[in-house]
């Protein structure tokens, strides 16, 4: 592989890992909004009593989904921090390999020029190992992101059910519908953010 592309590759990797961290941060915020919406819905449903009977279990469910999302994203965040370290590691090993190769070239003809060869090889192996590690963690992360999509999808289905329940809640209809609306929006945002993370990650893996 051409070493200049390695460097570019590293740069885009840094940016990708950074943007994933940003997307995940946004997902956390939105998941927190969902649990707020759930708490809000619960209060309304409590006041509406009989009129919002079907709504009460839904609010619990929404809350569960928000919690699950937060937990999953927490795990992912840890993994993405590790991914950042692995990116640094890969950058360092790739850079060292490139510079050692340069030194080996420059030392052609030097009395002890050949002694560097083993180090160049070792640096290459190290670089490949850290690249392998990086890729493995990317695939881990992709799986975890897939898992986050599930509660987000479920939340959308629940939002649709909530709308139906809300329509039977008389004077509480509007506020419950607003809750359903915000859950739906939030789930949509999470879904989109996670989707973006996944495509960023897939690009890194494909680019290698």
């Amino acid at each position, binding site marked *: 592989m051409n070493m200049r592309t390695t460097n570019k590759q590293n740069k885009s990797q840094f940016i990708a890992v950074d943007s994933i961290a940003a997307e995940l941060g946004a997902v956390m915020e939105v998941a927190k909004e969902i649990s707020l919406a759930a708490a809000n819905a619960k209060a309304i449903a409590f006041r509406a009593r009989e009129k919002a009977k079907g709504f009460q279990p839904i609010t619990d469910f929404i809350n569960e989904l928000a919690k699950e999302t937060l937990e999953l994203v927490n795990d992912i965040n840890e993994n993405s921090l590790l991914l950042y370290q692995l990116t640094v590691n890969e950058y360092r090993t790739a850079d*060292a390999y490139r510079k050692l190769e340069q030194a080996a070239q420059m030392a052609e003809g030097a009395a002890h020029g050949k002694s560097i060869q083993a180090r160049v090889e070792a640096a290459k192996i190290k670089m490949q190992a850290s690249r392998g590690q990086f890729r493995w963690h990317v695939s881990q992360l992709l799986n975890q992101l897939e898992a986050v999509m599930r509660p987000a999808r479920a939340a959308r289905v629940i939002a649709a059910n909530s709308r139906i329940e809300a329509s039977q809640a008389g004077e509480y209809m509007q506020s419950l519908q607003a809750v359903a609306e915000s859950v739906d929006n939030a789930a949509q945002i999470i879904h989109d953010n996670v989707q973006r993370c996944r495509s960023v990650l897939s690009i890194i893996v494909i680019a290698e």
Partner: protein
Amino acid sequence: MKMTKIYEGSYQWIAYGRDQNKPDNIIDTNQYVVRAANRCLILDPGGVELFAPMLAAVLNHVPVEQITDLFASHQDPDVISSLGLWDQALPKAKLHAPALWEGFLRHYGCDTIEYVPIPDKGGVINLDSVELQIIPAHYLHSSANFHVYDPHAKILMSGDVGAALEAPGAPMFVDKFDAHVEKMRYFHQRWMPSNQAKRAWIERVRNLEIDMLAPQHGRIFKGDDVKRFLDWFEALPVGVAI
């Protein structure tokens, strides 16, 4: 990279500098190597940009497995920003550097190289049968700063002290001291913060027998020019930007 043997006995001192391929916008540096029987020490190995040419140049004198020790007089990038690369190239080497800067220097990457912290009072580096003294030079200019003195070869590697800002390709040795002074004045007045530290250092160094004073930038002082430099430095007020 220009290579100059500055001491030849049962072991050697070699100066490396004036790298023609160095980018114009980074300061030119001198690197020194002490080559003993089976081990070799690089003093102030230099910046990232210099790593490959410096390593290649050293391979003219020693095989890579004999590069066992590095020394950093202080934490500046022109001194040791190449650390992360040496760390990958010399997994079993030691870095002798100020204890005070350990947490800072590790930012460059120091996972495989052993960091040997130098306490404020200095110490020694043993290189096979060669014993080198680590002389405190704090606040000249860095708050934890050391020079390396070889009592046998009578060489003092003096880091940024004695440094001069030179045109590319300048000779390795001071020839006309009076003319050389102008290339040193600004550097010392502006980078060196403390007259008190300067006086303490001069007093310490005047007790050493020195044939060569070898700075990290500019030219090496030989013979009487060493004394001339100490006198000139003593009279120069430093820390002028306040």
